[in-house]
């Protein structure tokens, strides 16, 4: 879930997030199944609609982001964020598209990730209609998990976008970067547009999805929607992404006008970043992806088990002058070490043992059938 945060390879980071999003989708599906079991068809349909909607959205913004990453790779020949930076000045359009994708995947309004995740949350919250306490608690935890996921996703894409596109380039790769050819940009533009449309006009896609789910569950999703707003379960929850978008846009225009009207100063001066009075500001001052991820590493220390390696070489004359400092901070997922790996090892071992069954010996195969037959016959009669 929070593996992506310590991942500094742009594409692998995105790949990790696919897992996360599939998790969200499966959360919806699982909720749907449980609702079904408790005969709450309408809610099941709601959860399923949310899941399918998120599948669709995930497809859009994830392909947008992958394209963006591809563009960056194409322009800089590196996927390592630590070597990127400042791309927003060199490839402005790609930057905008990637930003749209990042906001969408962080499930922030008014883009498409928001509304589907919002729907999923609604369906999860509505789980209190189920009258079985254990199930309720399972749902409570899944709500928390989903919340944490979306929070971490936001954090992660602040990192992804900020480190990759903002501030100064961290290598001449990034220095030399140029905007990619128009076809790539056109494709990204299209997907970005899709992210917006799916975000502010959910009714467009909700109608067909709802119909599909009706075929499947023979219950109408417990929701009402039109181009103004989406309503879950009567008055349980409201969201009007379209109007949020409009409101944001309007106010965003109004504020500067208001400021001008009250006669706020409009003069502006460009100057170098304040750097504690040091002479020149270079990209070496910048916060790196590793540093950015550090708090999370510290917080989830139990999961990440950061391995510190501080190596200071002192000046020969006086140990108060440091010549070089090397600080390494690789980190490994304890999930992998303590849970995934052993589990996988276990499964693999079992599988290997099972593989002996397919020995390649035709006589053995015949024996299986003979034994199966005799056993069943004896059992049945």
């Amino acid at each position, binding site marked *: 879930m929070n593996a992506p945060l310590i991942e500094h390879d742009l594409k692998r980071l995105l790949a990790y997030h696919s897992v996360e999003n599939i998790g969200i989708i499966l959360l919806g599906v699982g909720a749907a199944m449980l609702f079904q079991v408790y005969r709450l068809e309408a809610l099941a349909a709601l959860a399923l609609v949310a899941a399918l909607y998120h599948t669709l959205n995930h497809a859009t913004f994830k392909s947008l982001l992958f394209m963006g990453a591809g563009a960056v790779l194409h322009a800089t020949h590196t996927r390592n964020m630590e070597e990127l930076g400042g791309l927003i000045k060199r490839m402005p359009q790609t930057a905008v598209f990637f930003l749209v994708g990042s906001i969408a995947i962080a499930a922030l*309004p008014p883009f498409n990730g928001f509304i589907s995740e919002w729907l999923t949350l609604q369906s999860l919250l509505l789980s209190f209609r189920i009258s079985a306490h254990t199930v309720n608690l399972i749902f409570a935890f899944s709500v928390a998990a989903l919340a944490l996921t979306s929070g971490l996703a936001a954090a992660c894409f602040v990192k992804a976008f*900020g480190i990759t596109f903002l501030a*100064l380039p961290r290598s001449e790769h990034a220095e030399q970067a140029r905007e990619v050819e128009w076809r790539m940009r056109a494709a990204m533009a299209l997907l970005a547009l899709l992210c917006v449309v799916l975000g502010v006009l959910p009714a467009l896609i909700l109608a067909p999805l709802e119909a599909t789910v009706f075929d499947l569950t023979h219950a109408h999703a417990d929701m009402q929607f039109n181009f103004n707003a989406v309503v879950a379960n009567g*008055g349980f929850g409201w969201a009007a992404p379209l109007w949020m978008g409009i*409101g944001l846009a309007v106010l965003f225009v109004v504020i500067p006008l208001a*400021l001008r009207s009250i006669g706020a100063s409009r003069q502006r001066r460009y100057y170098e970043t304040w750097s504690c009075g040091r002479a020149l500001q270079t990209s070496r001052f910048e916060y790196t992806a590793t540093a*950015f991820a550090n708090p999370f590493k510290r917080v989830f220390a139990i999961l990440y088990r950061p391995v510190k390696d501080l190596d200071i070489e002192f000046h020969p004359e006086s140990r108060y002058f440091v010549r070089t400092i090397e600080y390494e901070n690789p980190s490994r997922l304890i999930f992998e070490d303590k849970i995934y790996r052993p589990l996988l090892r276990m499964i693999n071992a079992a599988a290997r043992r099972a593989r002996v069954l397919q020995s390649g010996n035709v006589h053995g195969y015949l024996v299986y059938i003979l034994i199966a037959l005799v056993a069943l016959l004896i059992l049945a009669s």
Partner: protein
Amino acid sequence: MLTEVTLELLQLFIVALGSPLLVGIIRKVKARLQGRRGASVFQPYFDIRKLFSKETVVSENTSWIFRFTPYLLATTMLLSSLIVPALATRTPLGFMGNIIALMYLFLLGTFFLALAGLDAGSAFGGMGSSREVAIAALAEPTVLIAIFGIALRAGTTSLDGIVTRFAAEPLLMLNAGHLLAFIAFFIVALAENGRLPVDNPSTHLELTMIHEAMILEYSGRHLALVEWATGMKLFLFLTLLSNLFFPWGVALTNTPIALFSAFLALIVKLLFFASAIALLETAVAKLRLFRVPELLAGSFTVALLAVVTAFFLQ
């Protein structure tokens, strides 16, 4: 129709103009508690005005993100002020989002502020953003579980729905779950607004600051906007705390009398919370950054307890 529009504008202006005062009051109370006279409660207004009249210095490393963010931040806050039932439940634009949507709206602001922090390419900005988003991310689960707790008892997640429900059946609030949810939400409010013990709004000590580090590069009108937006965020959170958990006085009908009384009630409640925060901030010291998760974990547990109690002792 007219009344609706006026109502929304009223809320807008209360939040927009009231927030600096709130900040001023908190500072004043704090000063008094610490035995200082402290600046006038209107000091924040003067600051903002001064900042607006000053010229703006922008780092040449920055991109449009840096200049764009302050406006967006203020925008999100103003938009939220149209959704939050500060005075009345019948807010015509309340349908724009339920409490969850509201939280995601706040997160949008944080998202951009963090980007702006990275934009200038200074070490402080980066440090600030990384810590800010870390805290925001860790606060999310608490927020939603707390909301879950409320929704369980109110049977809805729409803001005005919750207020109406509790106003209609005050007995619902006489419940351990309600209190627990409130505590959890309060802690989250502190964390989200960068108050003590999570962050110290009045420090500029490099290594401890979070929010201040993030906005270190801002100056002039940008800084003014950011400060103002921060004030509004605090105002909105306190309003939520007051009206969701103690919905007394919130106007259920849009009659002038009701609205006026609601206004008074709001002032009283906000004063109470302001002084509570001031008291708290004088009483407790700032936590080390890496103790913060423990605090949030604590609040998470509290919120979970709220949910559990809601399920088991209805």
